[in-house]
């Protein structure tokens, strides 16, 4: 199985699929696996399309790029990327509501008490502005401004982070180049069959041209099909459709926006939501819907009506089932990306879930054959990541206050996972968020959605009983003013993009170090 190189047996790693997940994996493996000891092959077929829509990310992508030694300015130029400070949710609370889930904090503690407690008290007295008015990331986004965050943790300018909107196909090509430079061998063909050892381990892939690709370890990046882990290894799929009922999407790129905004838009419609992702060279648009509540033809018609820019092409239809393989790593094969599971892109978590699986795999990589130890640990941690994202996505649907369609009424009435119910109960009763360290989305994210969608605690928890209303209002107003002043001095997003393009040509780095948090600094 292993092949010889200079008298040494090389451990053979075979990656199946060449979409974003496949090339992200290949680039990372190429960087961290010693070519003297490992051979890496990636099998892809141009005949099999990738999902290939515009992709919105979260700040962790910067960590991944840095890990691969990628220059951020060059990456932005290669992928047509724009900066992203959060996601604007339109119509998710009531039909006319709008809020931003920012990559950053809202306000700061007042006399040792969480800012949101102060805000709730002021709101009760009719004295508070919208919650997002106290978030620098939200205000930057709405003003169309951008500048890098400060590394000085005492500064208001450290209260946010940023990610990118990028062209996923271009990102794949960028990584493909990187991977091939690192020695990853690309094989262009379709896989016709998969051979297994008697142990159940995957032995080889048979290609359409008859070639047999042997491997010691396989990475399944075959997308929704889940060719190895799903089809060959028969790993069950945990279906979460009853909690996340959307199962279809239409995607279409249109010309670039006149003004490129530094945020993703996710606007609810009667049976789902639509996205808008601004890139430098085009705009990604999507229409996500539940086919039980909206027909394909109706979706197509409404999508085209809602496109603010005329499109010549027909949208691409994507069908999906929300959920995940019970285990991502089975036998000598690990599924990464859509082959491991699918969660709709409402919170831009798709590349994050791919990234975290790759990073975990590198930490645990079975350099001399797989044992239960690394496989079990990988599955446990990845499972936790998916569950955390799942609950947070369900929250958006559950908290809707729309009464305009059966879809939203279903979502408001549906039962939810116990873990989410406990989290919501805690906020309802105590205005608290139960923070965790393993998994995505911390208190600032939960608060943004709770308060953005009008989910308020039953009780004022008396936390600020010692502070007078006047004092609270003064501090809120002072913070709001400092946010406004800071944002007013910032350059426009387009200016920042132009500066990035310039730096890319001059090969000067000049971007902040990568943080470990979605919010610029740790919670």
């Amino acid at each position: 199985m292993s092949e010889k190189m200079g008298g040494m047996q090389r451990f053979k790693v075979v990656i199946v699929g060449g979409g974003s997940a496949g090339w992200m994996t290949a680039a990372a493996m190429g960087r961290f696996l010693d070519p003297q000891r490992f051979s890496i092959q990636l099998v892809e077929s141009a005949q099999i399309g990738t999902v290939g829509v515009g992709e919105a990310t979260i700040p962790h992508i910067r960590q991944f790029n840095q890990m691969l030694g990628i220059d951020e300015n060059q990456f932005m130029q290669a992928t047509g990327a724009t900066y992203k400070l959060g996601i604007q949710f339109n119509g998710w609370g009531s039909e006319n509501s709008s809020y931003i889930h920012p990559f950053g904090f809202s306000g700061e503690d007042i006399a040792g008490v969480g800012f949101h407690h102060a805000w709730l008290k002021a709101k009760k007295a009719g004295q508070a502005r919208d919650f997002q008015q106290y978030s620098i990331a939200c205000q930057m986004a709405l003003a169309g401004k951008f500048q890098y965050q400060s590394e000085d943790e005492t500064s208001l300018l450290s209260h946010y982070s940023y990610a990118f909107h990028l062209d996923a196909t271009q990102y794949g090509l960028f990584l493909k180049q990187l991977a091939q430079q690192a020695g990853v061998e690309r094989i262009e063909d379709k896989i016709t069959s998969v051979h297994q050892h008697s142990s159940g381990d995957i032995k080889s892939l048979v290609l359409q041209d008859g070639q047999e690709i042997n491997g010691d370890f396989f990475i399944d990046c075959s997308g929704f099909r889940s060719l190895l882990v799903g089809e060959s290894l028969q790993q069950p799929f945990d279906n979460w459709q009853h909690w996340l009922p959307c199962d279809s999407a239409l995607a279409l790129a249109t010309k670039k926006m006149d003004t490129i905004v530094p945020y993703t838009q996710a606007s609810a419609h009667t049976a789902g939501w639509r996205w808008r992702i601004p890139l430098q060279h085009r705009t990604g648009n999507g229409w996500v819907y539940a086919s039980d509540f909206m027909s394909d033809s109706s979706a197509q018609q409404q999508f085209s009506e809602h496109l603010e820019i005329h499109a010549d092409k027909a949208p691409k239809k994507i069908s999906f089932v929300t959920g995940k393989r019970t285990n991502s790593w089975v036998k000598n094969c690990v599924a990464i990306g859509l082959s491991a599971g699918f969660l709709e892109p409402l919170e831009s978590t798709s590349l994050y879930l791919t990234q975290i699986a790759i990073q975990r795999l590198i930490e645990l990589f079975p350099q001399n054959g797989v044992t239960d130890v690394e496989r079990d640990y990988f599955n446990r941690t990845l499972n936790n990541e998916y569950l955390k994202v799942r609950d947070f996505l369900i929250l958006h649907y559950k908290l809707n206050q729309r009464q305009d369609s059966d879809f939203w009424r279903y979502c408001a009435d549906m039962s939810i996972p116990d873990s989410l119910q406990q989290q919501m109960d805690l906020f309802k009763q105590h205005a608290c968020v139960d923070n965790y360290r393993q998994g995505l989305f911390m208190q600032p994210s939960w608060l943004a959605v709770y308060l953005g969608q009008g989910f308020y605690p039953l009780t004022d928890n008396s936390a600020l009983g010692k502070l007078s209303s006047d004092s609270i209002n003064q501090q809120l107003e002072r913070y709001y003013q400092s946010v406004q002043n800071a944002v007013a001095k910032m350059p426009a997003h387009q200016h920042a993009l132009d500066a990035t393009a310039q730096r890319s040509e001059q090969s000067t780095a000049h971007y902040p170090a990568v943080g470990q948090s979605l919010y610029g600094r740790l919670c």
Partner: protein
Amino acid sequence: MTTKQDLHIALIGSGFDFYAQCALLAAELQPFSVRISAFESVREQPDKVEIVGPEIAPFCQQIELALKTLMQQTKAGVSLGMQYQLTEKSFFVPYADYGLGPNEEFVQGVVKLAKQHQDLSINQFNLAARAASNARFAVPPANRTELKNSLKFGLNLPTKSATTLLKQQAEKLGVNFFQGEAALSYCTSNDSQKQLDGVLLDGQLHSADLYLLCNQVNGKKESKSTWCVASACTTIETSAMRPYRQCIATELGWLYQSLYGDQLCYQFYFDKSSVSEIDAAQLIKQHSGSDNIRFDSCSQTQFPHWQNNVISFNVRQQNEQQQCVSNLVWLMQISDFLSSHFPASPNTLSLAACFNQHMQNIAREIEQYYALHKLAEVNSSKIRSHAVAGLYARCGRLPQSDYDVVSSSRWHALLAGLGIQPELDSLYLQHVSLEQLIQKLQHLDKIMQGIVAGMPDYAAFYQQLTHSQ
């Protein structure tokens, strides 16, 4: 929304942990409208030693007590970690981080190199371990922030003086103390659950919104345990003072040694069904030379539990687990939870369920460490069946921790001390050659050598500390 003012919290108990909890809660809940009453059962504080880890520094900061004051006034002993003197091996487990400053793959780098150089020990690159082996110690100056995590230390505190100081601090922070034998008065709520109605003291019922029972099992009788601890202290010469604790293997079991002031204290935990008190006393006497041996019963750790309006944490009795993770860690977790989830209405299921879940997870982390600590004398095949040791042995990784109640450096040191070497090297270090690693580590070795050489002997440090009051 309804508003509720001045939440009233009542603590009932006695001893070091009780006063520590009073001070912590008062400090942590300062920003809130909270009234704290403490009902102390007045008991003669035993002449014991309280072992606390590096959590003592943030604890002191939280309760606004200078660490130096605590050390001076109690004549506390410093502990940079635990020296294991076992039958077939001896090794040191420091509290402090490896290397100088943050470096995620540092330990993996040393471990990789150690595979080629058998004489290389990871503790060569731990400043605290080096200081301990040279019997030197210094508190890192405030301007040397890079040394803060490289010289983390715990304390051995004499119960009597520490308790007095903590009570004073709690009073300063606004805790209202009541003395006497308090009785708990229960009532039954609508949902047939027993609720604490108040604390009966001198015929008067004191009601609160939330009760913390710091030394009593909530309404239940303590289960009888056959475990107990024999302890004795002896005076030693200043020159023999060492800034670490010891765990020494004997023919009967492990003997723990800790130092405060010039008192070297010995503790031996044993099961009365297999070791007699006479044998235990003999063992202690053999090592300490002291005839003044005290016996206390032990209980299994019962992690904090919230039911209805009562949080109970049975901390009165000692057990061996506290040699690994002190009760202070629990107390800080409780107060941290309460301040970050400040209760609007303490008697709700959602908050209690959340609290209990957290405490259960913390207990799991502590239990895992303690279990590995107890496996130190066991053969390596059994060690590898331990979940953390198994993962480390294979990949050199530790499971992600939610709470870090045991630092990764302690895990690494214990695992290395037990002779576990990871099978696989870190792929993140793929591009770092052994020569580069050697060069970096030699450079670090020199820096650490210089820092340790500049530290005073621990005995001199102690003399200076206690004479500069």
